């Protein structure tokens, strides 16, 4: 633990130079490769305006599209959005119904645009049978449609729980009869859903909440967290750029060791 390398060194080392985007001026840390957003504050946004909670969710749509566009033009290669957790099923059933309907509309509305921008979309979680079949079909279709795209990869965590993923990976190891000694971080990570996803570099959580909330637990191990008081429906491209800037100012140390980055660079 005492060997503390300078971070700018580790980031610009030759081994990583090709997988990480080169820094703007070559001086400081580059653009985070993988950014994740926990979209928080829709309900409060609506409450502040004395509107029903559902209108907060509706207002979130604009932000989602804005952030995708901002991330893409900033050169982020992987963007993950935390849309709906396994715990969210406990919300009132009309709100859940509304959310399902809204997501379906948003997916369909923006599918051609996302495809045209070369964004590869996929959905993390999406295993619960409570998800309506037509919505699951739309998720499937969007995944199929954009599967060959080589631009940014957008992972939407829908009905996702970080612990659930870890338990699933453990189960698959046990099922395959892998001996205990043979289990390594790498072999474990390879059994998580979408094993090609690299570790998260930056997590943005809006509305001032400072929790992990069971989100991509394995992948956020070394992530930098930026908490912004802005509510998600008010969050815009400018805020996103600001968060990235904050990240760039930070000194990432990875506990003093070079980071083991999950996943392989995509061709």
């Amino acid at each position, binding site marked *: 633990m005492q060997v503390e390398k300078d971070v700018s060194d580790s980031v610009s080392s030759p081994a990583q130079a090709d997988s990480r985007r080169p820094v703007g001026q070559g001086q400081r840390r580059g653009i985070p490769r993988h950014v994740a957003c926990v979209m928080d504050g829709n309900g409060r946004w609506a409450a502040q305006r004395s509107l029903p909670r559902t209108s907060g969710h509706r207002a979130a749509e604009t932000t989602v599209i804005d952030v995708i566009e901002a991330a893409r033009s900033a050169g982020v290669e992987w963007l993950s959005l935390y849309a709906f957790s396994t715990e969210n099923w406990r919300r009132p059933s009309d709100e859940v119904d509304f959310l399902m309907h809204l997501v*379906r509309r948003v997916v369909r509305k923006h599918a*051609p645009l996302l*495809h045209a921008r070369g964004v590869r979309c996929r959905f993390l979680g999406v295993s619960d049978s409570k998800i309506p079949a*037509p919505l699951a079909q739309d998720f499937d*279709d969007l995944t*199929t449609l954009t599967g060959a795209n080589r631009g940014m990869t957008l992972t939407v965590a829908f009905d996702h729980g970080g612990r659930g993923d870890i338990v699933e990976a453990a189960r698959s190891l046990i099922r395959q009869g892998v001996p205990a000694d043979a289990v390594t971080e790498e072999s474990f990570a390879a059994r998580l859903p979408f094993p090609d996803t690299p570790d998260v570099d930056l997590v943005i959580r809006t509305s001032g909440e400072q929790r992990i909330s069971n989100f991509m637990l394995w992948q956020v191990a070394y992530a930098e967290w930026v908490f912004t008081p802005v509510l998600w429906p008010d969050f815009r491209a400018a805020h996103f750029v600001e968060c990235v800037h904050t990240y760039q100012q930070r000194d990432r140390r990875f506990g003093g060791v070079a980071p083991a980055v999950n996943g392989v660079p995509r061709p």
Partner: protein
Amino acid sequence: MTTNTQPDSSGSETTADQAFAQQNPHIDADPSLFGPGSQFHRLMNDPRWALAMVRATVLEAAHPQIGAALIDNSTFVAHPWRRLHNTFLSLQRMSDADDHVRQREAARLNRLHARLNGIGAHNQPYDAMDPQVRAWVVATLFESAVTMGRLGGQPLEQSAMERLYAEFQGYLAALGDKAGHLPPTLREFWQYYDRVVQEELENTEALRIILYKLFDHLPAPAVLEGMPTIWATGRALAGPVIGAITVASLPEPFRRRAGLPEIPGAQTLMQSAYLGVGLARFLPEGWIRADALASLLSLSPESDDPRARTISAVRDGIKRAGALLRLITPLPAQPDPADTTETQRSAEDFFHAVLDQTGDGYLDWPDLAAMAREISGRLDLEEPQETRLYNAYADWWKELQAALDSDGDGRICAEEFAAAVPALAGPALIKVADVLFDVTDADGNQSIDADEYRALFRTGFRRDMAATGSMYSRGEFVKDFLSFMSGRQRSTTYDPLLTQA
């Protein structure tokens, strides 16, 4: 309905063949009757032949005996593409230049036909070995080939027509039927043909099913599975067109008698279709061949055939187009997409996808016979293995009937099946698995190697199997077969074999 499950092989075919050969020395004496230079061969490479075959099938179905046999036994409603492929393959073998190939195929067809007899609905007895019936099948093929030329604006010359007729006579002779059932000369043939059309053909149930049900509900060929939207859209357009074209090309006296509709413009449409498809002949050689197309359509996308990879690439493109189309279409009124990714299927699904091969909604002997037929066709079985396989299936049928036919009507419906699924894996089914292993294991070394596996499933070993050693033992084979047949487990290998359209 009674069906003969224990046919005795007809030993008289060689003598009939010889007698015919003596009668018609010019046919059998001419070794070049078949093979690359023949009219028959030219026919097989003509894209219009596909249209003509559909027409011939309709004319066959209009024959009361053939119609009854089709209704009872044929898989053409549930598995039209597989059947089309098998028919092309058979015709191709029957016109092979090699005498041995022809004789083998003729013997196979004879065994197959000998199993098709019984009494159909409306007490219509049928027997696929009836020489009159077989003569009519050949007559429709010949007449459709001639008509194809006429409608396409390129009528056959008299000499070519004579030669083609001789070839079809040779076809019938190879099957061992006496020549007498097909008139000796072309002139007499037309009299015979007109008489049958005028007097014997009827508006049979099989005819109506082909014209009005099959074309409108044609299942997607295997290569296009997973794209139901695209297929349904194309079919909604193409189905009625094919139907109209076929009806318009039928002989006028028959259309009148059967009360088939006269659709305005259908004649023109039909002639343009024959003409247009005929123009495809001017494409470079090998671009369009009816038989290649037929085998393509019955190709399973998971197959490791090199063509399958090209198709996969095209499929991916079409899939993406389909996905985009679905995403941008305004929200439909809650469609219910079938969930095909699950490994378990419901008893009802299994009943319709696997067991009910003839697609009539009941499980009956012809359904199991169709499975045995498909398997023995794929493995190119000869006697006595073929009979062993059929017998195993027949025993299984008796077991099923005893266990599941609760209302005693002699056949099993989907509800009866669903109610008794656990009883399915009885000793007779295990016997089927055993026999299937034996006949697949062509060299009898008690394990199935990659080539034997490919013969049955038309694809190589799965990757995980290739890794564990390239053999498939009896125990594993029987286990997989039983888990597919009784556990209703989906299987990437058995599904293409038994469920594909």
